[in-house]
């Protein structure tokens, strides 16, 4: 009797593992596998024509933040890499803040439309998202380049005498990234706001709250999950962005993504590229940790 029960249990366990197998295989191949390869490569020696030599080395990791002067062999921080890290974090943070700045009113606007209209407004937000990223980026290029829409218009209006150099600056990267990632902010914000009970907004008005106080004391705390989700969704891909800084920055204003690509391409330094990739992962995880902790501790104090 006990044997039978045990056998049934064993069979059930086996079936369970068998059913889980596809998911586990995918996880292994798609998530852990590449990460593991990247980690291993970062400790190897670069091959002459790309690829890696199977020889242990920590040079790649060393080169992430340090560099040896080619003339006097002295050791120093790699200013180029550090400034790229700083620029990446700065631009990603600014992108997130600007997306929140534009996305919040947008989501609020849509959430306060009559139910029938909301889907249409959301569609307008989502449609650009269906377009190829490169094409969307080039659309922004057309807008900000020297002979582009903005400059032409300003020249025609007589506001400026010569076109403003906007393309290939940090500004243009920022414009491009905000445009590209805005839907990722609007979607979770809208989802949170749609669930918002607007009688709470009325109740706050009724209790002498001004418009700004209603926003700060009632709406923002209630849609905070949406703000957190949207910020993460925008910040993470911004930090690793490759296409937008490449097109809008024109190779002058590199971000981490471009630096990594460079190592795997012209740089022929795969181990450094791998080490940089893992550094990026580290930065993202650190940033998220700090952010989630900050967002969590903002819980309203108990009075």
């Amino acid at each position, binding site marked *: 009797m006990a044997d039978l029960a045990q056998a049934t249990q064993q069979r059930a366990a086996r079936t369970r593992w068998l059913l889980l197998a596809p998911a586990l295989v995918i996880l292994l191949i798609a998530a852990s596998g590449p990460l593991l390869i990247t980690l291993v490569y970062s400790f190897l020696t670069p091959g002459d024509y790309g690829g890696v030599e199977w020889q242990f080395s920590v040079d790649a990791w060393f080169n992430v933040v340090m560099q040896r002067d080619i003339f006097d062999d002295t050791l120093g921080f790699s200013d180029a890499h550090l400034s790229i890290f700083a620029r990446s974090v700065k631009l990603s943070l600014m992108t997130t803040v600007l997306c929140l700045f534009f996305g919040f009113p947008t989501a609020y606007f849509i959430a306060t439309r009559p139910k029938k209209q909301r889907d249409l407004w959301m569609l307008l937000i989502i449609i650009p998202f269906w377009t190829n990223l490169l094409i969307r980026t080039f659309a922004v290029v057309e807008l900000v380049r020297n002979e582009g829409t903005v400059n032409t218009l300003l020249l025609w209006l007589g506001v400026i005498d010569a076109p403003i150099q906007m393309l290939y600056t940090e500004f243009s990267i920022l414009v491009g990234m905000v445009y590209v990632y805005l839907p990722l902010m609007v979607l979770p914000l809208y989802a949170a706001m749609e669930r918002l009970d607007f009688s709470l907004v*009325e109740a706050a008005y009724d209790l002498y709250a001004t418009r700004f*106080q209603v926003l700060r004391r009632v709406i923002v705390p209630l849609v905070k999950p949406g703000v957190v989700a949207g910020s993460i969704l925008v910040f993470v891909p911004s930090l690793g962005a490759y296409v937008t800084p490449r097109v809008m920055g024109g190779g002058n204003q590199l971000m981490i993504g471009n630096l990594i690509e460079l190592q795997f391409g012209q740089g022929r330094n795969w181990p450094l590229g791998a080490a940089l990739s893992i550094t990026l992962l580290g930065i993202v995880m650190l940033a998220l940790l700090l952010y989630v902790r900050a967002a969590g501790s903002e819980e309203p104090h108990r009075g």
Partner: protein
Amino acid sequence: MCVTVAISARKLRKVYPGQPPVVALEEATIDILENEFFTLLGPSGCGKTTLLRLIAGFEHPTEGTLTMHGEDLLALPPHKRPVNTVFQNYALFPHLTVAQNIAFGLEMLGKSRAEITRTVDEMMELVKMTQMADRQTGQISGGQQQRVALARALAPKPKVLLLDEPLSALDFKLRKDMQLELKRLQTETGITFIFVTHDQEEALAMSDRIAVMSAGTIRQVGGPRDIYDQPAERFVADFIGDTNFLPAEITAFEGDSIQTRLSSGKTVKARGHADVKQKGKVTLAIRPEHASLASEDEGLLAGTLGEIVYFGTDTHYHIALDDGTGFVVRRQNQPEIKAAYASGQRIGVRFGDDVAQVLRD
């Protein structure tokens, strides 16, 4: 006693645009007095909630004026009106505790920390929620949420408290308790309460005055007794309590009394509002408990006794009158009264002078 008008509406009208436009409120003219428990009573869609939201400032009227103690209310946004609302679904802030909810209005008014703490304690005492101060609003029962909503609205000491069907979500027993509680709070605080309900019993039990509304119009305003005993028109008589309607004809006016002839040819004196001046065919309203049974010849009206329904406290006798109308007589059950009537027998209906009410057409 000096009576001050708290809220005064003149020809207040609210039309929602659309195809076709919806008239939510039709020229409401009404005075609500200071320190009174005023009820807006009517079926759903009668405009009572619209009127309340106009006073709160959540809606703007299409036409008309609205003043509070002579001051124009319409010029003020909701957060500047000295009016607070208890919402139907309570609308408590889910991210705040009970105490924080009650403190919200005071904080927005910029009161000092000490005053806020004192008032919040006072309010929690008033609604008996002191033990629950630090609970999240999701962790308390419906009745308790109701109390918190009341305390939150009362805390800033508004001149007028608006209550939008606040008891409709509570079960029967709790509702009875809260009716008494609300009446007590109104007396203790001396604040004008404007209470919206569709429950006529609730309205009669709690109000100082009632405005009966239907289809966007205020039909009649008066004390519970006036409304019940002297309904001005058919809708009011029908909506509040049970009523018998009888066809009759006015034959003469004698001072306050109106001489009417019933379908049986017999005459009886009736009451009517001052604006009933025309002789001719009218409808009379008689409450079932104001009429009594009699023998066929003694009664004012004759008919055949139909169903006899026993309700414990009283018995309802359904009678088919000879003119075709139905009539119900309600008789209180006393131990000494034996069931003297049988279904199917001929019977008379009797009521005294000045009992029947002449309705406006």
